[in-house]
């Protein structure tokens, strides 16, 4: 696998066709005839096209379930793509497929290949096979027929049966082959990508760089022309998470899943796991990157508000290798516009450790939805007074907003109805929500107040609650 543009798909090696930035789904379906990978929405919203993407790292292949409709083809090079066809045992059914059939999950059938793939992804990468993780793994798979009750039953059954059988001293793939979850030929094909070297790509400063592609490709479908695009070179930005003194450094190439799974990150930002559960779905989080989320500059980005409240800084690296560090709050200039000079890449985020930070989000649908308003806050009390506070909100301004005036009303004062009322009034002055599909401006204003109350209540048990609202 040294040649460029070859991909291992299921148990065969194939030559990639088409432009790097085109999505993988039509290629899988039309050119390779893998029509069991279904196309339901083409925007990462339904999970019918879910495939596993296996990436060689540290001598083994890490598999993640991803939406192939948002997966740029170029990112397949040197990797292992596993579709439903690669998961079918030569005869009969895998234990996952058997559980779904026995519990009566299949109705129209359209969603099922994606669901089988997502559950297999869970078997491959969950440390322990517990139900909570299993449910999280299928959170991006929409089924319009079943009401999900049979899916829950299937997952419960699978976890009950296989969780006790997990052996941590053995490679998971080997165990899954033994259980019949993955056919031998597909598992063996994974070995073909283990030793491959990353393919260097030139960085072209004039193009929009695509990292995970989970938002950019959706914008393109919505008729927002991103201009010429190029895939972000794989090794161009850091993919490491490390503690450096009083800070946590998170590489721009770290995915949301990697971030949420990182012990160090969770310790720095205890609200991270909760935020991640509300961020897209697992098939999106498995691709979406920290850098992409920040640079993309969505005014309602979930991760961004957390990092704003955490007082994070971003490290930018220019084409000449020159580095620039600026506070995240200063990174956002205007709607979808950031302080990034031509050719600069967001290499890492630097997050101070030791803060108490909480996250809140209200969206029409609890998960798999963009916030009407989201918010995060940092709080430290000293002798009954607020010693340190920051409040960040999304969905209420052209940019993710650090509400410094509201915070100013709180700092140095007791956390009581008076200070809270003043903070709410100040908040009203600094937010500028608009009427859109995520709610009326009035609604968002009301939410901003309420999420402020909710955040402070989470961070300080003596904080006033509902009663402070008019």
């Amino acid at each position, binding site marked *: 696998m040294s040649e460029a543009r070859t991909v291992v798909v299921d148990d065969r090696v194939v030559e990639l066709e088409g432009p790097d930035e085109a999505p993988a789904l039509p290629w899988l379906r039309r050119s390779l005839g893998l029509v069991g990978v279904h196309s339901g929405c083409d925007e990462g919203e339904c999970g019918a096209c879910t495939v596993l993407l296996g990436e060689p790292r540290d001598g083994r292949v890490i598999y993640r379930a991803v939406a192939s409709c948002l997966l740029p083809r170029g990112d397949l090079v040197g990797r292992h793509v596993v579709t*439903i066809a690669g998961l079918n045992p030569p005869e009969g059914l895998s234990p996952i497929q058997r559980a779904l059939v026995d519990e009566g999950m299949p109705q129209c059938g359209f969603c099922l290949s994606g669901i089988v793939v997502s559950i297999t992804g869970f078997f491959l990468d969950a440390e322990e096979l517990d139900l909570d993780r299993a449910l999280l793994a299928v959170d991006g798979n929409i089924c319009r027929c079943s009401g999900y009750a049979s899916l829950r039953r299937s997952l419960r059954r699978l976890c009950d049966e296989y969780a006790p059988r997990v052996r941590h001293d053995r490679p998971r793939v080997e165990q899954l082959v033994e259980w019949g979850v993955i056919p031998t030929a597909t598992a063996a094909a994974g070995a073909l990508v283990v030793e491959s070297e990353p393919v260097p790509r030139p960085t072209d400063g004039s193009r929009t760089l695509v990292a995970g592609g989970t938002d950019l490709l959706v914008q393109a479908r919505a008729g927002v022309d991103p201009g010429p695009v190029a895939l972000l070179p794989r090794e161009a930005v850091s993919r490491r998470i490390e503690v450096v003194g009083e800070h946590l450094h998170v590489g721009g190439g770290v995915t949301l899943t990697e971030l949420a799974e990182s012990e160090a990150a969770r310790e720095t930002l205890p609200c991270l796991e909760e935020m991640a559960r509300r961020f897209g779905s697992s098939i999106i989080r498995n691709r979406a990157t920290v850098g992409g989320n920040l640079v993309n500059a969505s005014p309602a980005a979930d991760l961004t508000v957390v990092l704003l409240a955490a007082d994070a800084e971003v490290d930018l690296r220019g084409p000449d290798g020159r580095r620039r560090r600026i506070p995240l709050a200063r990174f956002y200039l205007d709607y979808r516009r950031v302080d990034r000079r031509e050719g600069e890449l967001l290499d890492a985020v630097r997050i101070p450790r030791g803060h108490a930070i909480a996250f809140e989000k209200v969206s029409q649908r609890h998960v798999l939805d963009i916030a009407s308003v989201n918010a995060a806050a940092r709080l430290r009390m000293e002798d009954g007074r607020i010693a340190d506070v920051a409040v960040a909100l999304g969905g209420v301004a052209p940019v993710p907003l650090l509400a410094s005036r509201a915070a100013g009303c709180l700092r140095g004062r007791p956390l009581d109805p008076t200070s809270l009322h003043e903070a709410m009034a100040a908040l009203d002055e600094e937010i500028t929500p608009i009427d859109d599909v995520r709610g009326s401006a009035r609604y968002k204003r009301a939410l901003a107040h309420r999420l402020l109350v909710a955040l402070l209540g989470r961070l300080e048990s003596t904080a006033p609650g509902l009663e402070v609202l*008019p």
Partner: protein
Amino acid sequence: MKPEDRVLHVRGESRFIDDLPLPDGCLHAAVLGSPRAHGRIRRLDVQRARRRAGVVAVLTREDIPGENQIGPILPDEPLLAEGEVHHVGQAVALVLAVDASTAREALAEIRLEIDPLPALLDAREAAAAGELLQPARTFAIGDVDSVWSDCAIVVEGRVETGAQEHFYLETQCATAEPREDGTLHILSSTQSPTGVQRQTARVLGLPMHAIEVDVRRLGGAFGGKEDQATPWAALCALGAHVTGRSVHLSLDRREDLSFTGKRHPYSSDYRLGLDDEGRMLAYEVTFYQNAGASADLSTAILERSLFHATGSYHVPHVRATGLSCRTHLPPFTAFRGFGGPQATAVIEAAVDRAARRLGRPRHELQRRNLLDEGDVFPFGMVAEECRARRCFDEAVARHELAGRWQAVEEHNREDPQFKKGLAVTPICFGISFTNTSLNQARALVHLYHDGSVAVSTGAVEMGQGVGRKIALVAARTLGVDEERVRIVTTNTSRVANTSPTAASTGADMNGAATRLACLQILERLRGLAARLLDAPVEEIEIRDDVVHLRGERSELGFEELVSRAFLERVDLSAHAHFATPDIGFDRRSEQGRPFAYHVYGTALTEVTLDALRGVATVDRVSIVHDVGRSLDLLTDRGQVEGALVQGLGWMLLEDIRYDEDGRLVHADPSRAKVPDLHFAPDAIEVHFLEDADNPRAVLSSKAVGEPPFLYGIGAGIALLDALRAARPDLEPALEAPLTPERLLQHLCTPVTEEMDSR
């Protein structure tokens, strides 16, 4: 012997139309939809699009050889716009090109100029303007006007229920292939193969025998492909007819969302009068149905609303009026429940309000007024085998209403922020097409001489398990293993003049026809077995693939018997016809017996409202449901659970709105929010009523597809409880969907500093 559909599905090996290889030289179609809700076409110039490389043809209404009309009930729906456009997305032109992207790109080259006309978007405004599809219809019993004064209390109010997108995962698609002598073979993702055949023949000016429609399965439908699959198949057929080449059309999700109709929004006024014992005396209701730009199935849907006006209750004096209002929105269409949920939601909201007024527990009022054997519906039908009370009482006992009610009250006293609501929701849903003529089905059964069986019916498999049920009926009737039976595609050349697979009747009617056909073959086989075993035919039975003589296994196996039958020149095929007996309805008197029977059930629905954030969750739904003697429990359970969650989505989540220009606000898939795993309640308990034989359907079963959708209403009512627990000063109206924004509006009422109430 044969792989099951379920097995194919989990292996990703079941094929949907878009998964099939296309015929050689197949063209791809793209549709130009009107950008305006209402207007006169001033100019339609397709020349530039025609000249584009890769484009083979661009068709407009002038290319239609037959009648430019596909309206199923009223002739008000042209296939391609003619003179005027009446809704955004109305098909104006069809581009045929060598691939789909070329076809879509060429749409931009069509010059379409429209002089805008005022657009009506609201049902009540349309009614005021006299824009009705038909004169208002009224069902009445007793003398409503004379009893109001006898009522101890009279409550009134308005209920709004919104549109709902089907979001079948497989979008609308079809492939039409020209065959010899000008005939066409069409693959269509439709619930109504005959509908496609009939309308295509009409459009092309061909006899129906020239059009063959074949359907393997649908990737979800829920009513959205009952009538609205037709235009896409007819457009493919038109393209194939004109070019002589095969044509494939598959809408992408955005097109599907913005071109196709949804569940009808209703705005309804009610008035309910009760005596001081809580007995309902009089009920008056007016349904304003937003029908959209053409009739589609709206009048039939309105009729079903009228049939369900009183829900599960007996009311002696009723006047229910329905208006189908023509607006400039994409024609609203069939969706699971077909007008029944909209009507049931109104009376449940009325009962809720009445209970508040009387200061009694709502469930007590509900129980007092439940239908009993012999009660008469407002349309004259008598309730028979009525199980409303049985389901209600069993649900209340089995799912421990009393204790849970108390727990909810206690919780609400103690928790200032999280408020719970608990609703009991009885349902009653009539089974049969309300258009009596549609209640007929046919089956064609072939027994091959190796002992395998192929069954053709008019039923379309769309995930509801109708194929599995019909296979079970065939196997049980013939006394053989189900593995022998294959349900083949639904094909208009094999089974003709089919009714759509709809109204929950697919298994009832097609199963009954299959049973009749199998019985014919069985009689012939038993006759032969009697001769071979030299025994009277009455003593012959086929069971477990073996001929039994006087209850004992004989040496004669099924396969040997079949093989002998063939050699003896016995007819191993049979065709049978089933027409639902004892039904009929007179639309002049609005009286009759439209339904073969009713399905009953009761749900207990528990919700929690977070009064700070204004968000709600459905915690638990516990159901007792009457499914007769279930043909297949796993299938029926899946239907109940799936319908429930769709109903919950309709009540709480799925917000479909149009802007002032008649454009769908949520035309991108990321905004069309349907229930996900997290939204669906963790705890869904379904108990099927026991000892509940149903003499009026095949093998004593009951229809199951639509009725459980109505359980969703319980979440709306329970949420009203929770809202009142948070804000005892409020009397919120049921306005679905109760989205987070609506909930917060209620919670913030009337404090204008924070937010105005609308």
